[in-house]
């Protein structure tokens, strides 16, 4: 095939990818975009919605790393925290502009994720060992947040001055900022999945050894996944920090972020494109409903998690897809009669 021909084919393919992706992404965006219309009377509820979108972003980032490349990064909160605290320190303490701070902090988070992945790949750590190493990273990050109190505000948290009088602290704009972020993340993940990167990811997820033998550079594509996912986590964490104005160790804590993100993603379907959004939306609503249970909230939450994984171990989207396929197959086999 001629040079121009391949380039042309690649273009058509890319254009087709964008088209098939854009319909569901626009649909999701349209549904989520109207949420402020019936929540805007309450600052508290808008806060919950913004946090829900932040979690959607975290879940997408984690999905890129774990769902697409099989690396169990138990440092979602910590990577987001590098973004959040990094951004806050760069803007307030160092005095850089907010946007520059966010981007620099994102870069730091991205590089950190890449390094963790490099270590895991070099030492060929399996799922559980990657989980333990990144969990240790999370615990170290937490200890440093508390220990370096003069820089991070320790347990009391960090009050961010920069951007306090800008639009990002009003009631509605943060919601749309986070929504755009989540949709962009979806598109990025979707396009990557349709590119040669996604092809390599699927190969190494299905059978690592076979992928290696077929010439896929498993290590390289794993690290790509970690870089992209960590950058998403850092960017989302930093952006959320500036919309909130106050961050503390619990904003990015393991129990408060990682555990919740895993539950959300497992609910929606690990490795599916829209699983993170479905999980984040569902559990944000569930969490609000559970407030009625007061102190028993954690019990009900735990019971839900149990039931969910007992009966829907693979998540909603893969299960639903199976049901649809089965029906189609039975219809197709019934048709000739």
């Amino acid at each position, binding site marked *: 095939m001629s040079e121009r021909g391949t380039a042309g084919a690649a273009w058509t393919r890319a254009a087709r990818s964008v088209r098939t992706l854009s319909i569901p992404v626009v649909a999701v965006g349209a549904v989520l975009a109207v949420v402020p219309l019936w929540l805007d009377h309450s600052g508290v509820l808008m806060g919950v919605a913004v946090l829900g979108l932040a979690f959607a972003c975290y879940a997408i980032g984690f999905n890129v790393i774990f769902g697409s490349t099989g690396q169990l990064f138990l440092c979602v909160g910590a990577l987001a925290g590098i973004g959040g605290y990094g951004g806050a320190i760069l803007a307030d303490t160092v005095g850089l502009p907010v946007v520059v701070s966010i981007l620099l902090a994102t870069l730091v988070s991205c590089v950190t994720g890449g390094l963790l992945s490099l270590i895991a790949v070099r030492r060929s*750590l399996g799922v559980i060992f990657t989980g333990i190493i990144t969990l240790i990273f999370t615990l170290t990050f937490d200890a440093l947040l508390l220990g370096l109190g003069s820089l991070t505000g320790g347990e009391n948290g960090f009050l961010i001055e920069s951007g306090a009088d800008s639009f990002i602290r009003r009631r509605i704009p943060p919601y749309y900022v986070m929504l755009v972020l989540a949709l962009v993340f979806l598109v990025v993940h979707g396009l990557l999945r349709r590119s040669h990167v996604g092809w390599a990811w699927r190969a190494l997820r299905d059978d690592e050894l076979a992928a290696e033998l077929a010439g896929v550079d498993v290590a390289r594509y794993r690290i790509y996944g970690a870089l992209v996912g960590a950058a998403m986590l850092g960017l989302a964490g930093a952006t959320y920090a500036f919309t909130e104005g106050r961050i503390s160790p619990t904003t990015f804590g393991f129990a408060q972020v990682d555990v919740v993100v895993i539950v959300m993603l497992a609910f929606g379907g690990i490795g599916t494109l829209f699983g993170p959004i479905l999980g984040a939306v569902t559990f944000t609503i569930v969490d609000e409903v559970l407030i009625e249970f007061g102190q028993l909230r954690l019990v009900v939450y*735990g019971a839900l998690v149990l039931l969910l994984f007992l009966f829907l171990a693979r998540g909603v989207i893969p299960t639903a897809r199976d049901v649809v396929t089965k029906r189609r197959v039975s219809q197709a086999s019934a048709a000739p009669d």
Partner: protein
Amino acid sequence: MIANVLDGIVFGIQLGLWAAGLTLVYGLGGVLNLAHGQIAVISAVALAFGMDAGLPVLPAAGLALLVGGVVGLFLDLTILRPVYRLQGEARVLLSLLLTLGVAFIVDGFLNWRYPGRSLSLFIGGGAIEILGVPMRRGSLLASAITLVAFAALFSFFRFTALGRAVRSVIEDEEGARLVGIDPARMLRLILVLSGVLAALVAVTRSMVVSVDVQAGFGITVLALIVTVVGGLGSVSGALLAGIILGIVNVIAADVIGTFMSLVILLLAAAVTILMRPSGLLGVEE
């Protein structure tokens, strides 16, 4: 320095005990029990209730061990059933998620029903000098009990037919099946045993500091790290890793300061895992 090392050993033996139950269940069944610390907390609550009801310490502690074992058995008979049907990483992942749910339920319930409740067993009497270092009686007794427990565990695995059967399943499940050992029954036994070990954590820990109803996750996380550093499935590895990390922790706390000591402990754990991914005494996979 000697004082530090002794303190470190006392803490390290504890850490080893925290990890022992976890490492057995993982090594034998590929099940990561994130509710391990919660079993300890449930047992602590049982012990506190036993003593409130007027039981002397020993029968109350016996009650706690019984409760721990029953909780382990309960997990095996209920939520771990679907886990056993899976293999490999899917099995680890589902066990981790389901036991996490259990941990939430236990934490939420205990916090709601018994907020701020804590257990501390006060062992009276003055300090005892060892190598010229005064040590608290409670810590020493806790260490002694833990060491006896480890000795019992080692002899169980070395000298009894049942213990050898369990070890054979850890080493080669298929081979064990071929010589007539039922892995499922061994696994049930180990879950009960790990529950008892978790209860023993509660009993001995409460002789040193008070164990409150929120302590579960902290215990699980440290136990997990010690487990991995020691080598999955290796009880002696857990004890060794516990003692090493315990000494590192105490010395770092003395030299650099308390908050950095946790960081140093974590780094030590990370370095060990990276140098020896199969753990100190683990078997190469």
